[in-house]
Each structure stands twice: as C-alpha cells, then as structure tokens.
C-alpha cells in the first residue's frame, strides 16, 4: 500500500470515528429511551467501523 492510499484510509477512518463520537455526544443530551440505542447502534457502529479501518490500514501498510 502506498503512503497516499494509507493517508486516504486514515482520513476516512477519522471521518467515521469523528461522526460516531459526534452522535455519541448528541445522545448524551437526549433524555429519551431511544438515546441509548442511537448511541450504541449508530454511534458505536461508526466508531467501530472507523477504528477497524484504521487498524486494518496500519497492519496492511
């Protein structure tokens, strides 16, 4: 993998993790029973996808 493609993957994983963390922060304000589901299903999935992409990128570089 070239440095250029590694950087692109790092950027994509950064976008995914940041989006997930933003969702997680928003759900902390939301006093509704669905907040936890949004936190874990949406925020957690985005964060996990970003982290896995990051880990895959560095081990395959």
């Amino acid at each position, binding site marked *: 993998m070239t*440095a250029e493609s*590694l*950087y692109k993957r*790092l*950027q994509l*994983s*950064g*976008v995914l*993790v*940041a989006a*997930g*963390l*933003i969702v*997680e*922060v928003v*759900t*902390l*304000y*939301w*006093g*509704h*029973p*669905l*907040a*936890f*589901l949004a*936190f*874990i299903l949406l*925020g*957690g999935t985005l*964060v996990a996808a*970003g*982290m896995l992409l*990051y*880990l895959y990128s560095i081990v395959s570089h």
Partner: protein
Amino acid sequence: MGIRALTLLDAGLIAFTLIAIALIVLVALRPGLTAARGGKVLAFIALFISPVVATWIGTTNHLEHSKTTSFCLSCHEMEPYGRSLRIADGDYLPGGHFQNNRVPREQACYTCHTTYTMFGDVQAKMQGMQHVFVHYLGSIPENLELYRPYSNRECLHCHEGARSFEEMEDHVDVRPELASGDTSCLECHDTVHDVASLDELEMWEGKTE
C-alpha cells in the same frame, strides 16, 4: 424530545470527546504527520484509544441514566405507575417505600424491579430493550404485568436481617417459606401499584426526586 440535565461527569465526558474529535481532525487534515513516530502515536491515541475510552464511559453513563426514576417514567405507559408512588397510604408498597426513602427516590423503579443476581443488571437492561421493541413495533397490552412472578429475593435483598423484619411476629413463623419462596411476600403485602384506583386515592404532594 427531552433534554437531559447534565452532570459534572457528563460535562467531563463531552469535553474529552471534543478533544478526541479535535485530534482526529488534526490527523485527518494532516495525515503526513503519521510518517514520524510521534505522529503514529498521535494517530493511535486519536483513532483508537480515545474513541474506546469515550464509548466505554458513554455506555456506562447511559446505563446509569437508565436506572433513574425519571428515565422509567419518560414512557407514557409508566405514567400511572409513577403516580402510584405518591399514594398517601403506607399500605401501598410502592408509595410506602418511595415516600419513606426505603428505596432511593432517584432509582425507585430500578431498586425493586431488578433481579439481585449476578447478571441482574444485564437482565434488567435486556427487558428494557424489550419494552422499547414492544413500544415501537409491538402492541402494548392494556394491563401491564410482570414477565414472571415477583421473587421474594428482591424483597429480602434489603429486608433480610433488618430488625423490623426479623422480629415482626407475623414473619417469624413463615421465615423458612419466605426464604425458599414457597410463600410469596405479596400474599400478605398485596397492595401494590393499583393504578386503576388512582383517581380515588389521596396523593402525597411532597417532593418526588
């Protein structure tokens, strides 16, 4: 859509998450930083360590919030059960416990309606998920009932060993049956949430949480 009152811990978590996002933005805008050793460490902290920590603390935070009375009563199906905590008659078990601080008012529902076993917390959360599923995708029964008979274990978790329980004449003879579950506490203490009679009962006007 309700807005939660944030605690100091919530504010700390939000600040931590915002710092994590700032680090992620830095790595995403300047990925060339990761060519150096320090940049690699920065990327690992931003893209792995900090999201894991934020998600872990956030999960704990949500689970703790889900134990609160206000959380349980945020579903309108639970509204009459919340009102029953204010029935001004000590013979009504929920009201008697709630108004006399026999259970923490901010976790009144959870204290009695969790199972005191190794995985009781997890079981309670799974049932909460089931409630959400039924609320949005199922049909809500007209008369709400417990999934299984109320266990004496939940009562004895607090009352066993208490002088007021142990020395009460009516309890002495049936203690073995209460411990084994052959006699339910609710056979005698049978006035529970009685939501059908709420409009006819006097209500306590004191503070709730």
